[in-house]
């Protein structure tokens, strides 16, 4: 692979590398500045590892003030900056370029305060998603957005990508669960947006920052909503003969007024891969599987499940497997949550992330299969069925450049299909570099120019994460 273009590095910046490093060394502690080639190597790429660029230098500040000093300096010197959390972006959002300084928040990983009465926690941006839940779980609370990468990914990265997860069907994504942030602008200004209250004053800048992929500033702290966990939760597995039947069951459940906490869909290919890895007891004779989770007391879950099972039966369900213990429940989720890792063991894959109107599901599944077959490849599908967020995994062999290109092309065709049926290019992984050149498929030039004018308010010289989100051609600067 390697078809996605990067901007030409600024020769002037490259030539001044030593001076720039010397300047940075005045601003942060010695162990916060990484310049050696081997030490920089881990920052070359993120989870879109087919692409990599060696950054000019890496800075890992420990305080908001240090971040501000570094950004002020980089802007003054005209040096591009790439914000980084844990580097698990699947769209290349945190991939640097040769003339850029990576500013990582991984050292800023403290939980600053927890206020149970007001159901809010103040955390530094580098804390992992799971650590937030870990810090409050003893009191029965949790942080709702639960990306499958939650063990590794940071709150800052979650804010960058507006990340979601299986439980977002009921609890919303990152943007619905953050009350305030401390943002450092490229000017080095420290801006407090929102706080520990709802509906912050003025324009919804919080809503704008979340999902802006590190293009508007670096988030150093966040106030996140913490919620009281339900008394219990029970995932149930439903096996259907065909994807169509499973899709129809999803629509019927929602149509009946039931919003489970999660509704995850896996097709035959994904069932095979995940079962081989996780031994979750998935039914092997099914064409599609739904994992539906309900919450509440035992009686509440029984009652809710009875309704769901009745609807599933109307749609030809052949296997219903309830988890009878915490271990069984964990196994059911383990299969789903390890889908990406398990797939990686059987083949290389590109994970796509489009969203479609759920009514288009049967059509899209059929078309996707045709698209991928036409390239001579295979696809495994796992996705958040309740909200139509697809994750087709296009399987290929990365040692075969021709096949790799085919996989990338097939992926792009799938995303175009998502837009064609009324959906969008990315539901939770972001545009990054990966889908940058497809933005024209979803937006016309006026739409894009308006977004870029807003971007330019924060970064007129286009130095923050410059190669991401917007096509390199036709950029609007201030």
């Amino acid at each position, binding site marked *: 692979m390697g078809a996605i273009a990067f901007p030409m590095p600024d020769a002037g910046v490259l030539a001044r590398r030593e001076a720039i490093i010397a300047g940075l060394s005045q601003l942060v502690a010695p162990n916060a500045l990484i310049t050696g080639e081997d030490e920089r190597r881990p920052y070359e790429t993120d989870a879109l590892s087919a692409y990599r660029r060696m950054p000019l230098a890496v800075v890992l500040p420990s305080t908001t003030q240090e971040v501000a000093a570094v950004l002020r300096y980089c802007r003054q010197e005209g040096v591009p900056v790439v914000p980084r959390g844990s580097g698990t972006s699947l769209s290349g959002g945190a991939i640097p370029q040769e003339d850029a300084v990576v500013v990582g928040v991984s050292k800023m990983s403290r939980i600053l305060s927890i206020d149970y009465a007001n159901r809010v926690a103040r955390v530094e941006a580098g804390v992992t998603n799971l650590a937030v839940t870990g810090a409050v779980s003893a009191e029965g609370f949790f942080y709702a957005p639960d990306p499958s990468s939650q063990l590794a990914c940071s709150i800052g990265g979650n804010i960058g990508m507006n990340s979601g997860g299986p439980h977002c069907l009921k609890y919303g994504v990152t943007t619905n669960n953050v009350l305030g942030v401390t943002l450092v602008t490229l000017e080095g200004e420290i*801006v407090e947006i929102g*706080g520990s209250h709802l509906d912050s004053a*003025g324009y919804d800048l919080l809503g*704008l920052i979340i999902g802006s992929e590190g293009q508007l500033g670096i988030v150093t702290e966040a106030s996140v909503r913490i919620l009281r966990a339900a008394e219990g939760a029970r995932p149930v597995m439903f096996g259907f003969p065909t994807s169509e039947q499973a899709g129809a069951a999803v629509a019927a459940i929602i149509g009946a007024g039931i919003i489970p906490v999660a509704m995850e869909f896996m097709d035959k290919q994904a069932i095979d891969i995940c079962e081989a890895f996780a031994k979750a007891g998935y039914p092997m004779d099914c064409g599609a599987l739904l994992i539906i989770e309900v919450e509440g007391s035992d009686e509440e879950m029984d009652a809710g499940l009875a309704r769901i099972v009745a609807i599933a039966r109307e749609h030809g369900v052949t296997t219903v497997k309830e988890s009878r213990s915490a271990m069984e429940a964990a196994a059911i989720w383990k299969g789903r949550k390890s889908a990406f890792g398990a797939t990686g063991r059987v083949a290389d894959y590109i994970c796509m992330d489009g969203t479609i109107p759920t009514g288009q599901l049967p059509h899209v599944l059929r078309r996707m299969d045709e698209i991928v077959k036409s390239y001579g490849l295979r696809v495994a599908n796992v996705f958040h069925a309740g909200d139509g967020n697809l994750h087709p995994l296009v399987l290929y062999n990365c040692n075969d450049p021709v096949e790799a290109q085919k996989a990338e092309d097939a992926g792009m065709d799938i995303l175009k299909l998502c837009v064609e049926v009324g959906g969008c290019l990315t*539901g*939770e992984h972001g545009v990054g570099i990966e889908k940058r050149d497809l933005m024209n498929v979803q937006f016309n030039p006026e739409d894009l120019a308006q977004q870029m004018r807003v971007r330019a*308010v924060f970064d007129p010289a286009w130095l923050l994460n410059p190669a991401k989100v917007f096509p390199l051609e036709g950029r609007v600067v201030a």
Partner: protein
Amino acid sequence: MIVHTPTTEAQACAVVKSVVDSATPLALCGGGTRAGLGRPVQAASTLSSAGLTGITLYEPAEMVIAARAGTPLALVQETLAAHGQILPFEPMDHRALYGSEGEPTIGAVAACNISGPRRINAGAARDSLIGVRLVNGRGEMIKSGGRVMKNVTGLDLVKLMSGSHGTLGFLTEVTFRVLPRPERIVTLQWRGLSSDEGVALLSKALGSPFEPMAAAHLPAGLAGEAALTLLRLENFADPIAYRAGELAALLGAYGVPDRLEGAGPDALWRDIRDAAFFADTGEAVWRLSLAPTNGPKATAAIARALPAARSFHDWGGGLVWLAVPADGDAGAAAIRAALRPLGGHATLVRAPDAVRAAADVFQPLSGPLMRLTAGIKTSFDPAGIFEPGRMYAGI
């Protein structure tokens, strides 16, 4: 006053283009009931969404509805009700407060981020708004978001539009995510608690696993002689019965609550949603948003400075509705001083024009925030034609 009433998006673009060169200010309106909130706007002409009506997409099984901006809110709600669905954020109806008779539109609900008591659990209008089409200040049609809930494609201009009060663009179509209407609604009611006790009770309930959908405290004298502390549960019938019992037990220290259903509590929640207790009084009305446990602290501090102030607490204490005498600065200085050590913000929702022209209606922003705000305004509306000064001077 010229009123432009386009019936197509192209016509709306043409109206904006026709005033852009001369930078002639344009008021935007939906049902034309506008007047109350925000700073008074001087505009030569008005661009109305009254000609842009109709539901353009409704897929109950996908929980999504789209309508042109001028569509009456009532029509949207009736359409949803016919399929057993609701707008999750329970939009407030300001007509009681302003004493006007217009027809609220879905576009203005989006533009002003109008929400109600369910906000604490189900989010604000902005949380359900998933797509917009708008005319920007260059007369261009812009779309952002779409019809699917999960979407991180590019910058989220949808959120920016929500709560921009018409200052960034003229919405022509809005798309919301909807939810099933609950099968049953039960209100638990405690009588005679102080505000501190009431908010502590609500806080404990909201930190329980039993999912109250709304949580309010009304001091004595607002809705009857006794103070009322209220929790609303919504769900299928069985979970509600169970949760009501568990909550009553958990909160046993505060006494045994009444369990209410039907028209009485529905009307009470409507009054809370619409701040109707302050409807006919001529007082100035403020809306404070702050951390829930700071609610009683804020009202106590304000009462010291403004003894005539009356208030009640929604969102478990996080939303304070406040009525004060409408003279002077309508309490602006005292209220904002009380909030300073507590955090949060205050909006002057109702006051005479002269007061709103002089006082800050919306919470003043820090220097850096104001600069970003001004930049965003310019990025959408370089000539400054839309609702000039509605939110802040120059915005």
